[in-house]
């Protein structure tokens, strides 16, 4: 079985390198080890989304039973999205679970993940806090997602309001990422975020 998986990944790899998305730079795929069981993916944040301009790294683990079972994928780049855990990078996407089909490929999966960034699905959330903000406070959600893209994914759009609030917490001696998570989770209410960390 392991043999089928490796052979198919090799074929996919050749195909994907010739695809217009790789040539155009919107997705990338690289090898992590020699026996084709682990790869690294990269997707560009779609235009007209808060992820625009960011580059998101993905860990791809190919099971021995591939393509009869889906690849195991998670975000390595921290991202603020209702269907991705802001802590572990775990993804909630049906084709990576019970809607997997053997004819799907790493290329179609990467494109689906890119589409997920364009259209979050808050009714099937991976991260409940993010999903709640997405539904109830879209303006703050967009701001937070853009800020995370700027800080963690190299996005060009600096969100000054977020930076200055994070700085205020840094000045209190709080760890930067912890501060950002607390502020993001409490709708950028400095008082409540601080309270939560010290309380």
């Amino acid at each position, binding site marked *: 079985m392991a043999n*089928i998986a490796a*052979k*198919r990944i090799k*074929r*996919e790899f050749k*195909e994907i390198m010739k695809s217009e998305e790789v040539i155009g730079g919107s997705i990338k795929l690289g090898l992590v080890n020699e026996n084709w069981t682990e790869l690294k993916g990269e997707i560009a944040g779609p235009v007209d989304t808060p992820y625009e301009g960011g580059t998101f790294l993905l860990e791809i683990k190919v099971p021995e039973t591939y*393509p*009869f079972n889906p690849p195991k994928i998670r975000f390595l780049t921290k991202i603020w999205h209702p269907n991705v855990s802001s802590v572990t990078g775990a993804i909630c996407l049906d084709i990576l679970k*019970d809607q*997997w*089909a*053997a*004819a*799907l*490929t790493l290329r179609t999966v990467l494109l689906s993940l890119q589409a997920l960034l364009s259209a979050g699905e808050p009714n099937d959330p991976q991260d409940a806090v993010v999903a709640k903000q997405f539904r109830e406070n879209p303006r703050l959600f967009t701001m937070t997602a853009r800020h995370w893209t700027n800080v963690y994914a190299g996005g060009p759009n600096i969100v000054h309001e977020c930076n200055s609030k994070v700085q205020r917490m840094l000045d209190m001696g709080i760890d930067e990422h912890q501060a950002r998570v607390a502020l993001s989770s409490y709708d950028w209410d400095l008082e409540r975020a601080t309270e939560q960390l010290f309380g």
Partner: protein
Amino acid sequence: MAGYFEEMGWRELGDGEQPNHLLHFARFLIDSGLDRSGAAEWPSLPPPASKEAVKKLQDVIIENQKKGCPICLKNLEAGEKVKKMPCNHIFHPRCILTWLDKTNSCPFCRHEMPTDDENYEAYKKAKKRAEQSQNDLDALHNSMFS
């Protein structure tokens, strides 16, 4: 005014009569969509295709096309014997049989084959009925308001 209430099937409560709370609660649940989440998606991968249906899959000899098998991505060469699904998609026998032993749909287009799982077949019927009644309801609604 009385005509309106009659038309809606409403009437005044009698002396000492209480509204039907259970009925109102049921309507509330339906309006908030709870009835639909009850008939939710099948919780995991659908079961394997039925043994009978798999046995009946057509064998085809490739003539001269050079399409690939969507499962292993290897080219299908002329003269090779392949399996043809009811949706006309073709695969290496070993590839498609392994897949159908796991779940019942075409890996390419998700065309569903019958299964040997009673629960799943019952679920499929219930889902189809729900779709049908939703369609009927939409048709009725549209006919009244167009």
